[in-house]
């Protein structure tokens, strides 16, 4: 399985994890370790930056785990840019998961504000991974603005509905010059495997692992599914045909 790069980092694991929704921080830590993930996203609003011993961060101190602070809570570009700078200062990383969702119900990303924030943050030297709709044009615009990757959603966040946006994801993967990480809605290991088979560079999973009956075991299942899907992609999947291929009735005349 090929490693891949985002910005200046190389990743062996193509599974990224979220840290919210777990029943305990110990459970979260166990699941992350079992997943083999090297990049985990942390909501700035959940972290107490004033204490050395923050309950979440103290469970994420492992050499192979990189932190990806996110701006969840920001409702526009200005708030996100400000939060990003604070996160960079406090967590000593210029990596950022850019999340701008003015809608607190479905947490759907605001494409206009996200593009604006990406333009600004790129100038400030951030490695930006924006959470966005599966919008191929927006992805190209973000590339032009200097994004390090794109994170289109598979379905509404936390919905566990899988790859409802599959037709657009395929276009994004086909066109993208930056890594494509499928972010939201991945509900089962089979969804993750499917995303990898399509050629996504990585997937980010949170709810499906955090609220599973056994989060650690579910993390292992996702780890294996991501590996299987990626291997299938690299091994070149056979084409699917909807009907059996007939002996060439349309071109047979050429050989008569």
């Amino acid at each position, binding site marked *: 399985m090929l490693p891949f790069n985002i910005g200046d980092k190389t990743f062996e694991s193509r599974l990224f994890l979220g840290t919210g929704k*777990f029943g305990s921080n110990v459970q979260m830590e166990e699941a992350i370790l079992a997943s083999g993930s090297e990049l985990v996203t942390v909501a700035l609003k959940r972290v107490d930056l004033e204490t050395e011993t923050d309950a979440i961060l103290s469970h994420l101190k492992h050499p192979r785990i990189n932190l990806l602070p996110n701006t969840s809570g920001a409702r526009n570009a200005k708030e996100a840019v400000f939060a990003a700078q604070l996160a960079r200062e406090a967590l000593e990383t210029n990596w950022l998961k850019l999340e701008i969702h003015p809608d*607190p119900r479905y947490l759907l990303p605001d494409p206009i504000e996200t593009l604006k924030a990406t333009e600004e943050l790129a100038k400030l030297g951030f490695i930006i991974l924006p959470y966005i709709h599966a919008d191929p044009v927006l992805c190209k615009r973000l590339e032009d603005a200097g994004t390090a990757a794109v994170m289109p959603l598979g379905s509404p966040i936390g919905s566990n509905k899988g790859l409802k946006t599959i037709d657009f994801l395929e276009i994004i993967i086909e066109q993208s010059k930056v890594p494509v990480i499928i972010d939201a809605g991945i509900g089962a290991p089979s969804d993750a495997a499917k995303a990898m088979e399509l050629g996504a560079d990585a997937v980010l999973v949170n709810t499906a692992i*955090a609220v599973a009956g056994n989060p650690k075991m579910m993390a292992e299942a996702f780890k294996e599914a991501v590996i299987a899907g990626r291997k299938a992609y690299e091994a070149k999947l056979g084409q699917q045909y909807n009907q059996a291929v007939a002996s060439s009735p349309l071109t047979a005349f050429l050989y008569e």
Partner: protein
Amino acid sequence: MTNFKHTFEQYNWNEIQSKIYATTAKQVEQALAKSKRNLDDFLAMISPAAQPYLEQMAQISHELTKKRFGKTIQMYAPLYLSNECQNICTYCGFSLDNKIKRKTLTDSEIKLEVEALKKTGFDHVLLVTGEANYTVNINYFLNAIDQIKKDFSIISVEVQPLSQEEYERLHEAGVYSVLVYQETYHQEVYKQYHTKGKKSNFDFRLDTPDRIGKAGIHKIGLGVLLGLEDWRTDSFFNALHLDYLQKTYWQTKYSVSFPRLRPAEGIIEPNFIMDDKDLTQLICAYRLWNEDLEISISTRENEKFRNNIIPIGTTSMSAGSKTNPGGYVVDPQSLEQFEISDERSSFEMASIIKQRGYEAVWKDWDRTFDFKF
């Protein structure tokens, strides 16, 4: 400019009540079978016909809550700043005609109360007062908020209804959410319970969440005082109100609370009794109707109920609460608004939450996002 009154006037209390009580088992089953449920489904789920489906509703509520909010419970604590009140509300301990010494915390008293609360782990405080507009007004609130905002990531307020401009000032000052309960949506009954004072104006109160929404406050909390009128009909109107607000102020979060009438000094007995089964049904109905709604359970409820409601739809809980100004250290004997039922401390509650497989979350906001440009 739009307001809820317009929507409210299109509904009739008696018609809604009849519809609720005429709901059939088939209608309940249809509502439960859906993946997206509307207000008609909510109406069916709070009906007596839905009672036999309570376990099924609880199971769905559990799954939906887990999916949306994870296995977490947000922790908050009330801080009563004043029990002065110029309203007469026949069910409330702070009622004007209740001849007991009144107290409003001074700066130094607030400081002592905050120090005590911080020792118990809280990072989200809910400021509560009665309604005494001459002394406990916007200037008093702004002064208090300015004093305590370094100590809490989230400040919520539950005070008298204010003007839009005053809510804007609270928002500027760093208030995250505002709670205001209509008490009852039955206009005539409302008048009987709120006989005197500014609160007797039903329409002004009904319009309050609109003013909060227009002011850009992050979260609005609604509720009815369960026990004043038929809880099913009142809850339908509360849901109608939420539905209108969510569509109008779409960037705002919403929460619902379930104050059941509790004994307090000099007050009446509830007219309508709501038992634990009813309350569980109501909580489930809210969740099944609205997956994103925050559901808050206070210490009005007893230990057994609170322990068991954690996985059924709850998203936030208070603990170790005092409902009197100065209750934590300054003046433990002052007049309380109501008696609490669950006296366990914050850390005891957090460990109960943990035993249920949930994480008690103390911090879920950062002042960074309140930065003004």
